[in-house]
């Protein structure tokens, strides 16, 4: 539904009068992956959910996931991957990766809840890209909200990967917009995520209106 011009104008006035505070560097988790850190002004926000929407079947989200895990490993940081459809393909050994292979969304959300409450893992990735849309829609909004509250309480960082925008509890939602081609098989794996066109589709306290991606 289009927003009226007055509301947009009011928001602009408020934004000018009360400029937002930049997050302190300590509240950001620098992932070392440029295509994520750059738009997020330094990294993923600690104590929050950041969502990455990968609407196309082949748009480089798995490549970005591998890049992210490798980067965190290089920085000696523990990562938990909650794999909603058991689809992760291990390429290189990863000593500091905890892989939780789930069968469905419900199991994955419960596993994420346990991992976040544990408070030991720096970055948790909840990968629901391969889970079907109808399965995701069954998850009540309260579950996402509770996940967001737990993330905030335990000051961990959660990256949620889905095929469409679902969570109203994330602090920012990025979307990968371009598709992979067979010519990308000749590219270096590390350059694939960098060549993705990543845009915000939602950002808390910003002028980006939610745009619902197509499944």
């Amino acid at each position: 539904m289009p927003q009226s011009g007055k509301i947009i104008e009011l928001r602009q006035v408020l934004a000018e009068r009360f400029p937002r505070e930049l997050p302190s560097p300590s509240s950001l988790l620098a992932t070392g992956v440029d295509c994520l850190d750059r738009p997020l002004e330094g990294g993923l926000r600690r104590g929050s959910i950041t969502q990455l929407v990968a609407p196309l079947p082949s748009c480089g989200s798995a490549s970005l996931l591998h890049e992210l895990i490798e980067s965190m490993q290089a920085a000696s940081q523990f990562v938990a991957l909650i794999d909603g459809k058991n689809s992760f393909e291990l390429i290189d050994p990863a000593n500091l990766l905890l892989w939780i292979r789930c069968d469905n969304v419900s199991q994955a959300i419960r596993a994420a809840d346990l991992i976040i409450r544990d408070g030991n893992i720096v970055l948790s990735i909840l990968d629901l890209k391969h889970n079907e849309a109808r399965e995701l829609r069954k998850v009540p909004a309260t579950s996402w909200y509770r996940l967001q509250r737990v993330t905030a309480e335990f000051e961990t960082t959660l990256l949620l990967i889905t095929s469409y925008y679902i969570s109203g509890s994330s602090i920012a939602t990025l979307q990968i917009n371009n598709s992979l081609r067979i010519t990308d098989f000749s590219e270096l794996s590390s350059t694939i995520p960098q060549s993705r066109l990543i845009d915000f589709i939602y950002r808390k306290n910003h002028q980006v209106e939610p745009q619902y991606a197509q499944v």
Partner: protein
Amino acid sequence: MPRSKLFAVVHTPYFRLQCAQQKLLNAEIEFNQQTNLPLFGETKTVHKTGDKIPSALLDDAEIVEVNPAADAAGVSIGITPSLALARAPELQLYSSVAEQEEQQQEALLQLCYRFSPFIENTSPGVCTLDLRGRKDQHQEWWARELLAEWRILGFTAQIGIGPNPELAEQAAKFANPYLAVNANSQLLRSLSLESLQPSHELLDILHNWGIRTLGELVHLPREDIGVRLGLEGLALWDRASGRSTKVLHHMQPPEIFRESIDLEQRLETLEPLLFILRRSLEHLTLRVESVYRLVAEIRLLLLLDNEETLERSLQIPAPTRDVAVLFRVLAQYLETVQTTAPVVGFVLEVFASNPGKHQFDLFQSGLKDPNRFFNTLARLAALVGNNRVGIPEKIATHRPDSVRMQWPAFDWMDKAPTATKSPRIGPALRRYRPPIPARVELISGKPVKIQSQSVNGQINKLAGPWRSSGDWWYTDRWEIQEWDIELTQGGLYRLTLSAGSWSITGGYD
């Protein structure tokens, strides 16, 4: 100027009786838990009453130990139970529990060892400490601390400090609960000669002289004693005056931290068992703490009513003395246990280890709470399955999707991150588990169209085939042909031909 020697003796009066009372206390707790009576108020009442009402220990059909209340009621050691009950009708009789006595004596030695490395296992309930090396201005502080810890384990004791072990022991018997004496102490002077346990001949001679107390003995000139009574008389005079000391048989307490309890009632529910286990765990942890160690492993042996046993060792990922953490590990295990019969007893043993050493580099960080983490892992394993959570590890084979899950080792947090790999080519794969069966149209041996449950369409571009095989020397040999395909409507997939069937094994993403 050399420091004068100082000894302390921890004296637990009617020790064996207290051990038997401890056993009864456990039974009371267990009963209260089963009948849901108000626990703390009830057990306190029982314990206080136990101190006040006459109690005696029965062994081999005669009274062997009495408490002060029983003593005041005329119950003396050596009489028969019927005579004792005739003198004090409200007398409570306990039978001796040898195993409990042994365990509690070990606990006493372990507690004392914390305060002095030179200790002697003098007798049941009595431990002598050589205080050389202790430079405390106020011995009373640590003495009261020791008594408080011994009290937590359920025992009332007294401490005496003196210039030699015998005098310290005599002081301990009169202490309330702490008494420090020197050789000139009036109390010691008034003690009888028997307190130093001289030989009967020597005692008879001294009694004939009219010498009955230590004070009277030390008033006699030492040289004259030597001339008349020889070396034995001199040694007695020196001990009475605090000049010499008997040789202590130093020992190191065994590092065995074990409590075994035979329950009065058969336990069919978890709650009362957990309560008693927690109490035992608190005792054991206190003993481990006294030797400056941490609990690294818990062993629990459940004794069942049908004479079967159930034993389990539980490793503690990050050794700790936190009772709450240890209890959580124990409770979590017991919640998953189903026994074939009610529990009638248990043996709980903890194994001590030294505090772990963790040296991280500048940018490496460990887990904040490893015990909590391994607890979470157990919960995750219960949620998704044992082999579906862990650290992924590649198996040394070319067979696709050959990964095994390793349960993180206890030193997982210390492991160096994986070394940087050589650059890879191409996008990453998301694997379909299981693969999606597909129908494929071929032209000149190359796929041109694909049809499946979820992926359909004309193939725009493709690369392949990539052939691989292996394990031909086994019965489960494998041989596959893989194609990378791009559909007209978009989407990169891996198409696999294996044993004559096509399937989509994953999508590039």
